[in-house]
């Protein structure tokens, strides 16, 4: 099963800064293992961020994003206590959803 994400959301003025850490190999499908066999591609393809019940980010991702991805977003009009829900789905259909509250 996929590892939990770490989500941090904090108000700076009237903008919530959302930082997301995801645990994922983000294999490109172009690397070879020690035996010379190609390691199959395995990477997150889409992600969404919801704040206070509304979708704010709809993202698509390719193999050029680093292993254990890190993203940062800014959302206007959020407030302390709003629920932040982040989800991702990878090319093998693995998925993960985690949440945090705006602080």
């Amino acid at each position, binding site marked *: 099963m996929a*590892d*939990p*994400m*770490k989500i*941090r959301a904090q108000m700076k003025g009237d903008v919530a800064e959302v*930082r997301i*850490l995801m*645990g994922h*190999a983000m294999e*490109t499908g*172009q*690397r070879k293992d020690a035996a010379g066999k190609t390691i199959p591609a395995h990477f997150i393809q889409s992600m969404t961020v919801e704040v206070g019940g509304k979708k704010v980010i709809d993202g698509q991702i390719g*193999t*050029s994003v*680093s*292993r*254990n991805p*890190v993203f*940062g977003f800014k959302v206007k009009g959020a407030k302390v206590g709003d629920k932040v829900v982040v989800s991702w789905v990878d090319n093998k259909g693995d998925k993960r959803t985690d949440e945090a509250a705006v602080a």
Partner: protein
Amino acid sequence: MKQNFIGALCALAVMGGAFAQTPKKPAAKPAAKTAPAPAAEEKDAATLEFEKFRAEMEESNPAELFEMKGEEQWKTKRGPKNVSLAESCDLGQGVGKVEGAYVKMPRYFADADAVMDAERRIVWCMVEKQGFKFDEIAAKPFANANFTPDITNLVTYVAGHSRNMKIAVPLKDPKVREAYETGKAMAAYRAGPYDFSCNTCHGSDGKRIRMQNLPNLGTAAGAMKGVQGWPGYRMTGGVMLTHQWRMGDCFRQQRFPQPKYASDAIAYLLTYMIGNANGQVYKGPGIKR
């Protein structure tokens, strides 16, 4: 993508001292003028450039993912004895107490009659309290692309609970002092095919191997650079690695045989290095090149 941008034909080779001097013999040679200044500015520009992005990299460090896992493993009953570390493991601050424990190790533990760094101590607890087999832990002690050992998560968790605290290795304890002095002598010991010691690379200020700055572990500030950031998330390969790993990899590059995992030898060296950093502030698990 060619993931081996690592270029890491890494080897510490150290070419030395007298090379740029005028050849001693033949003495008749006209004295060579000092070569134009090395691209010191270039290097500094690169270093400055890295530092500009450093804060941002540290602010969102994948190491936190491993801390989260380590916390869960610390609190969960595990092993043949079905005991949690939280209810059995004393890191020197009382059973289960992790706050500030990392910066106060290595220290002497009477129950083990040994000076132990944090990783060695947690391994000891896993073996003695939870019933895990030492040989099994030591067989695969460090992370690779597909695997992160529990001990790495645990050390990262414990280290995270010493964030922004001062390093305070109890050097007044005679047993710790002895470990420190032995570690100091080990750091100076040159041997192997290339005549390297730890100090070849880490014994003076302002040196660099390729683009990598080499801290002088004999000074407080330099030692802190060697301590800071371990355990660390390594960008190359994207794996979480510990200070024990770092010590082993130094010896690999030193062309030495391999130090045994969680051994006295590594504890001595870590006591020397971390002890030299006493009083400096530890910022927690880091992110490394």
